């Protein structure tokens, strides 16, 4: 892959809504954490125009494919997704004029399917019993079967995914904290966030905390239980200094507390990440930045808020 730069990506999207991706707010948690041993800051990725952290890799993967002249007129961009990446890619492809096809497990939250279709993306619904791994296998089958038709973006293997965080999210957090950040806490799905932010901030002495669900059968949208799931090619355990697990029950309880005590309406993965950040704060203290990947609106059709 020819190496993209933040300046090049900015230049390519100048004057469009895609210019608004990134520069998301960083807000302190004031009630959930008493501040006795440092500060926890929440990085609110729902402020991206597509509503989640996935706008960042979505944009960079499409621009990379354009720069490499894979994604030309007449081609169809293709990927497998549980939702947020699909929405991000659909928004980016709408602006850039590309056709998009997404493989997604059937019976995941209805909001996601409707938003993708609103942006003009088309969906291939896969066996819900096979989860995201089944969607990945379907995307691989399609890409192999019709290589002239599809450009398989493959968020799980695409180096532009972590690069968006290495050259975007990481430096952004460093600047927002004035270099005071001591820990970065985020969940692992494709692992792009952890791998990219690690590349940017670990050399500056920041400890990287990677968080996973504690069970293969979990309810933390977007996260992978690596021991039981298909391993993303970009994942490397060595990118994190600290690996933690969080239960879905603890994640849901914290997601509700974030709304009621901090005014942060988050998805479950945000609550899960904050559970881990609180544990880090109690054990080590410091200036901890925790990534909240999306907002609670995307889960209104699920029982989470009932």
């Amino acid at each position, binding site marked *: 892959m020819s190496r993209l730069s933040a300046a090049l990506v900015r230049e390519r999207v100048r004057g469009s809504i895609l210019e608004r991706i990134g520069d998301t707010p960083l807000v302190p948690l004031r009630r959930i954490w008493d501040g006795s041993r440092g500060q926890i800051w929440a990085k609110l990725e729902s402020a991206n125009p597509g509503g989640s952290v996935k706008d960042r890799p979505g944009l960079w993967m499409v621009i990379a494919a354009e720069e490499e002249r894979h994604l030309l007129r007449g081609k169809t961009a293709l990927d497998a997704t549980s939702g947020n990446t699909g929405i991000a890619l659909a928004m980016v492809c709408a602006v850039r004029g590309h056709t998009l096809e997404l493989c997604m497990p059937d019976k995941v939250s209805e909001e996601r399917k409707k938003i993708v279709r609103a942006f003009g993306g088309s969906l291939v619904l896969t066996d819900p019993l096979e989860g995201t791994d089944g969607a990945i296998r379907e995307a691989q089958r399609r890409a192999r079967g019709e290589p002239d038709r599809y450009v398989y973006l493959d968020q*799980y293997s695409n180096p532009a995914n972590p690069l968006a965080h290495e050259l975007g999210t990481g430096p952004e957090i460093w600047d927002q904290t004035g270099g005071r950040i001591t820990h970065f806490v985020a969940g692992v799905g494709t692992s792009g966030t952890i791998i990219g932010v690690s590349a940017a901030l670990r050399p500056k002495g920041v400890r990287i905390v990677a968080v996973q669900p504690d069970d293969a059968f979990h309810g933390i949208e977007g996260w992978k239980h690596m021991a039981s799931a298909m391993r993303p090619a970009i994942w490397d355990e060595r990118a994190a200094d600290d690996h933690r697990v969080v239960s*879905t029950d603890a994640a849901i309880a914290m997601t509700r507390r974030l709304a009621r005590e901090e005014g942060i309406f988050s998805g479950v993965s945000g609550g899960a990440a904050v559970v881990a950040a609180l544990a880090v704060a109690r054990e080590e203290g410091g200036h901890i930045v925790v990534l909240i990947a999306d907002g609670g609106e995307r889960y209104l059709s699920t029982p989470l808020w009932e």
Partner: protein
Amino acid sequence: MPVTVRLPGALRDATGGETKLVAAGATLREVIADIDRRHPGFASRVLDDKGELRSYVNVYIGEDDARTRGGSAAQVPEGSEVMVIPAMAGGG
């Protein structure tokens, strides 16, 4: 009243590797209890401490979402297929 229960791979560890089982019961709770008798601990993966479906678990009885038919108290007609899936999908 036998019914077929299909499970995701992520629950395989709770059923000794099986993802398709035949179980008996007139309600969803009874079907889950029947599986739990053979695979102790299964019920707690799917139901909370009040015996209701965990908020991140979706169950379909045929094409119907069990929550629209009474949750764990939903009737399960003989011969129907029950599908248990996570309400959220992992991995981006």
